[in-house]
């Protein structure tokens, strides 16, 4: 599939960590998704890939909180409600320990956003590993993100679309597991594509 996103901006910004803690409990799931999973593709230059962590650092100057929000490993998450609970607890616990930070106004407001996803068939069906690799070479950035990162929530299985297909349709669990070990946190999407192809290409020739 070819995936594209339109970013919708929420109407009510938050201006303090106290407001963030509250909004984390009530905001749409799509916003939790957007500021964690989806922001992974847009943060090659910032300290953290989570928008919440980045805001805690740059707008609130709370480096320790930022670090805690950033180290939540999205690879372990299979439900947005779980992720919401984890993030809200981190902020609430931090504010209990640092009550002076709760109502301090941030340098700039945080706007909850959500990505409106549009998918269309890519016209690149795959029946073999070779065809899969060829399709991956022709995927745009957002589609690669959709299949390798966003898919983890869709599948709710701590894996990605490619590994799932390789395991269940080609019966290569070892290859699926190897692909799933790629660390998407520290790659650009072009690097990620190359890492995936580096795993697939030797397997194609077997």
């Amino acid at each position: 599939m070819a995936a594209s996103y339109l970013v919708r901006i929420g109407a009510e910004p938050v201006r303090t960590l106290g407001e963030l803690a509250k909004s984390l409990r009530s905001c749409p799931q799509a916003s939790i998704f957007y500021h964690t999973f989806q922001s992974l593709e847009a943060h090659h230059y910032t300290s953290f890939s989570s928008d919440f962590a980045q805001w805690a650092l740059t707008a609130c100057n709370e480096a320790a909180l930022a670090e805690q929000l950033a180290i939540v490993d999205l690879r372990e998450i299979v439900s947005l409600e779980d992720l919401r609970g984890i993030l809200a607890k981190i902020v609430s616990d931090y504010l209990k320990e640092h009550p002076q930070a709760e109502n301090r106004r941030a340098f700039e407001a945080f706007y909850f956003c959500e990505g409106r996803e549009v998918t269309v068939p890519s016209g690149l069906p795959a029946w073999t590993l070779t065809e899969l690799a060829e399709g991956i070479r022709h995927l745009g950035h957002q589609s690669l993100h959709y299949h390798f990162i966003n898919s983890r929530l869709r599948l709710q299985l701590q894996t990605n679309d490619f590994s799932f297909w390789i395991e269940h349709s080609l019966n290569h669990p070892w290859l699926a597991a190897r692909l799933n070990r790629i660390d998407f946190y520290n790659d650009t999407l072009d690097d990620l594509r190359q890492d995936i192809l580096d795993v697939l290409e030797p397997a194609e020739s077997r």
Partner: protein
Amino acid sequence: MSTTEVAKPSAVLPVLQDYAAIVGEPEILELRELARRVAGRHVKMVNSTAVGGGVAEILNRLVPLMEEVNVPTRWEVITGGEKFFHITKAFHNALHGAPYEGAADWFETFLATNEENRRRMRFDEDFVVIHDPQPVALIAERNSGPHRWVWRCHIDLSNPNAQVWDFLKPWVDRYDASLFSSPQFTRGLRIPQYLFFPTIDPLADKNRDLEPEFVRDVLEKFHIDPARPILTQISRFDRLKDPVGVIRAYRLVKKYEDCQLVLAGGSATDDPEGAAVLQEVEQAATGDPDIHVLNLPPWSHVEINALQRGSTIVIQKSLREGFGLTVSEALWKKKPVVASAVGGIPSQVIHKLTGMLVHSAEGTAYQIRFLLANPSFAKVLGENGYQHVKEHFLLTQNLKRYLVLFLVLLQGD
């Protein structure tokens, strides 16, 4: 008075496939797939100037690409008298937070001009995209048909003058969706608000690669010495771009570095203040042969490209800013940028990673001196900035956002 349909440029324009060399073949393939879902739908874009300013530049490049992917797009420019544009300039400044001292009849004149344009225009298209406040009241034409109306706001509404915003907001509320250049620019509207970064065209004369000899020739033509550091701000002669503040920053740098300053720009047809500001700038620059104030005609894209490429550091010391596409232009040329943390600039300049953000003339001078003293750091900023623009602020992404927007509107948001 008549509305003006913008003539299609006669020069050979790049086609979508030409961008594959920059953004990659996969992005182009996916754009074509998306476009197939929108093909045959008609679009109208309306703004207030065909020449000068970022909006006209974007539309000049975007409209032909939309046509190419079979989304017929008509671009029309509203017309109005001198008084109308004087009023809309005051609105523009007021929406950026400046005081508003409009006469009693200004709102009435604004609406009357919109009404005259509305009567002369036809709105048969599937999607009507109205750019900025000047034509906002054309929404009065909206009927109950299947047409979708979108308001594209290119300016920073984070701190508007209440009187002007209260007047405009009821019109904005009648649209199906609004598009903003940054989340910080929004006003908590009831209609959907979408994030639309403005973009530059990497193949346009203003941004395409140039031969070093050509860059040198342009510098020579304007009597700029390529052997000494060149600090450049490219922008319209507009008080919100603070050209006099740039001269103040340059003078602080000049105490330590034998540098030159280039202030190059022109004026848009919808900006009646340009001539007065140019005069103020020329007066402030008097007596210093190293300050080059260049009032360029609107077709000087390749010269502006050369000036940016020939610069040591590019400055954008705006007091208020819409998005500040001149920043993206400079980053695309791998230039270190020193820019104010206003409007959409922080989306482009991430402090110390893709450029330096500043808050005053003194801060501007301080960071310029730092970069002149640390050229290897300045080079890294330029390289990062180029990648950042490539990922977020190129024309192909703008085309993609519009196609996705139209699909979303068709599906009903």
